[in-house]
């Protein structure tokens, strides 16, 4: 019921309210009116019967006194014409019945001695008892029986009929009024709802609801139209703002494209910087190897050999004598032997340097190819023992370390293979070793020492620690040293540790630094994930 009422149109609700109010009001009014009517009817009925009994008793004095049955019957017989009275009886004082009309209770004779008027109810019948008194002498008794139930029933039927008629007429009138009045109330609301629906359907905020009255609905319509004005204004402002935003967005996209371009270029520059840095690191070793080879090749041994050969050609024919007797000739054989030894030694050293040179060149190649793979493909992950990576890194910087008279200590406490990109680890380790070398440039040569420590843990993987006795790192810089561009060296570019930390993260590991402060050295720990751990490479 409440759900139906909730979803019913306002006109139906108004009609329902009006009709319900009308019916309830009528019910209450009629119930009250009928209750009052019944109260007065009952009171009047009793009073009327009492008066009738009193009057008939007075009229019956003569009949009772003279014991005239005929006159007594005539007197109470007149009661038959009175509505509601269904019986009457006259008794003499002796109890003898003088006259009767209708059906009376036989037990009435037991009450005859009463001298005062009485009344009582039996079922729906009202009994009256009135003494017949002549000159203050009780000479007889009159009884009247009235059918109150029938009378009240008639009244009820009459009232029900009246109520139904009134209710029908009232409902009809209320229905007509509700239709006419309902239109006055519901039409503005319907107009308002139709306008709202039209606005919602067409998204047209130019529409306005028609104000049909100056009542609350009219006020609401006015407010609704005012709100529409505001909505329209804000809609226009919003559309303008959207246009502005679209324009700004387009500009932003253009700017973003430009920025992407610039960023790409910057990234290319950063890549180039990284490549140059790493290649530069390796090129140092290449330079050293090349210098050493050049130094070996630039000796005067070949010239001396050529001079010796020319001398022997000049002594052609007397070469044996020359070798045997000439003091210079005597030196030639031993010279040639020593020269051969030197040449062999130099060849071996040159070969070693060439191998180092080849490895460095290969490393440069890998650096370049790795930077290319940055842009296109993932790096190659291979399972390798960390101490071998440490050895390769040490080898790459060993010459430089020797030149700077730096002691290098390699400690492998425990080890297990790791799945890493070899060249990234080498870049990191070479970076760390070179940074350690630079940190000890201003120290006395006897305390220049780098310790490379390898340890492994089942859960945390492998930790490679590069510990130096260098200048140390101020606490304030510990959080900044991995930032791009941060450096404490005059010729540094702040890229090495930044790229190393990124490379460690890409492999699923980490790079951390610690120092007890300036002058107390520093340690860098490269943690590589255990074998089964997922490795992220890029």
């Amino acid at each position, binding site marked *: 019921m409440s759900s139906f009422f909730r979803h019913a149109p306002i006109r139906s609700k108004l009609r329902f309210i009006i009709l319900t109010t009308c019916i309830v009001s009528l019910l209450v009014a009629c119930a009250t009116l009928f209750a009052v009517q019944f109260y007065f009817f009952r009171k009047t009925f009793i009073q009327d019967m009492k008066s009738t009994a009193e009057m008939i008793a*007075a*009229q019956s*004095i*003569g009949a009772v*006194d*003279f*014991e*005239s049955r005929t006159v007594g019957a*005539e007197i109470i017989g007149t009661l038959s014409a009175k509505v509601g009275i269904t019986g009457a009886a006259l008794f003499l004082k002796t109890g003898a019945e003088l006259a009767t009309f209708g059906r009376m209770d036989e037990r009435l004779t037991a009450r005859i001695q009463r001298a005062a008027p009485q009344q009582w109810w039996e079922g729906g019948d009202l009994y009256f008892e009135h003494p017949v008194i*002549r000159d203050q002498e009780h000479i007889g008794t009159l009884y009247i029986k009235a059918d109150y139930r029938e009378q009240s029933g008639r009244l009820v039927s009459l009232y029900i009929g009246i109520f139904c008629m009134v209710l029908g007429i009232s409902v009809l009138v209320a229905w007509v009024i509700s239709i006419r009045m309902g239109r006055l109330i519901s039409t503005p609301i319907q107009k308002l709802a139709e306008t709202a629906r039209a606005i919602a359907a067409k998204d047209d905020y130019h529409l306005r609801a028609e104000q049909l009255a100056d009542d609350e609905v009219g006020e609401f319509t006015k407010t609704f139209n005012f709100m529409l004005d505001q909505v329209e204004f804000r809609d226009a402002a919003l559309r303008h703002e959207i246009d502005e935003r679209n324009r700004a967005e387009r500009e932003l996209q253009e700017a973003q494209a430009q920025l992407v371009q610039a960023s790409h270029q910057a990234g290319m520059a950063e890549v180039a910087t990284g490549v140059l840095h790493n290649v530069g690191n390796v090129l140092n070793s290449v330079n050293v190897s090349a210098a050493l080879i050049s130094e070996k090749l630039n000796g005067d041994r070949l010239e001396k050999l050529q001079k010796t050969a020319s001398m022997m050609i000049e002594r052609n024919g007397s070469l044996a004598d020359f070798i045997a007797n000439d003091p210079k000739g005597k030196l030639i054989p031993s010279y040639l032997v020593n020269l051969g030894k030197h040449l062999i030694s130099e060849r071996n050293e040159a070969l070693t340097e060439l191998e180092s040179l080849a490895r460095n060149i290969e490393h440069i190649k890998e650096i370049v190819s790795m930077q290319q793979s940055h842009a296109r493909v993932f790096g190659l992950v291979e399972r390798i023992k960390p101490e071998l990576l440490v050895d390769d890194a040490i080898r790459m910087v060993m010459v430089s370390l020797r030149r700077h008279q730096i002691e290098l200590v390699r400690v492998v406490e425990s080890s297990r293979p790791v799945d890493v990109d070899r060249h990234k680890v080498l870049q990191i380790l070479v970076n760390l070793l070179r940074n350690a070398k630079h940190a000890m440039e201003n120290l006395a040569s006897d305390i220049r020492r780098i310790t490379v420590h390898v340890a492994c843990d089942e859960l945390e993987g492998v930790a490679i620690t590069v510990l130096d006795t260098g200048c140390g790192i101020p606490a304030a810089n510990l959080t900044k040293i991995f930032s791009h561009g941060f450096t404490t060296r005059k010729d540094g570019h702040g890229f090495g540790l930044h790229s190393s930390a990124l490379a460690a993260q890409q492999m699923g590991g980490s790079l951390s630094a610690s120092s007890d402060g300036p002058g107390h050295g520093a340690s860098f720990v490269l943690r590589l994930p255990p074998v089964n751990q997922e490795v992220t490479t890029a």
Partner: protein
Amino acid sequence: MLIHPSTSGSRVTAGRNRRAFLVWTMMYFCLAGLVFGQDSGNEYQKKAVHIGKLARYVEWPKDKMGTGIPLVIGVFGTDFASDQIREVVGRKPINGREVVVKTCSTIQEAAGCHMLFVSRSEEGRLSAILRKVRGEPVLTAGECDSFLKEGGIINLRTFGNEVNMEINEKNARRSDLKISPRLVNFGEGGVGG
């Protein structure tokens, strides 16, 4: 029971039957007279009661019914009727007045009575009696059929065991008497008295 004489019986038997017939006839008349006398006594007793009660419903002119004046009831007719009325009415006062019942033999005796009862036996001189008291404040009561037509006021007639009363209020007014409205239902020709 009737016994008829036999035409073929012996003379002895016929004599017995005659004697039995006489005995039964005598017994019949004795019983009839006894019963009749009893009925007549009841009738006049009731009428006496009515006459006594009627005095309570009638108002006489004050100049004729002064304070302390006894209520005089005259009776025309048999002594039996007078005795019955005297027996019933004369014992106690009515409306505080002493009651005097006198038997009237001459018409002149009707003067001075407040109430006058004319029995059936006086039907022959009823007109003369009523003429005598006409216009006088005398409440006349009778029992003849023509009593009211002759100018009487109240007629007491017997039907079965009941005494009915008829009142001619017009004659009462002519006699300057006021009949109580409580007796209006006893009007002449209406309900019968």
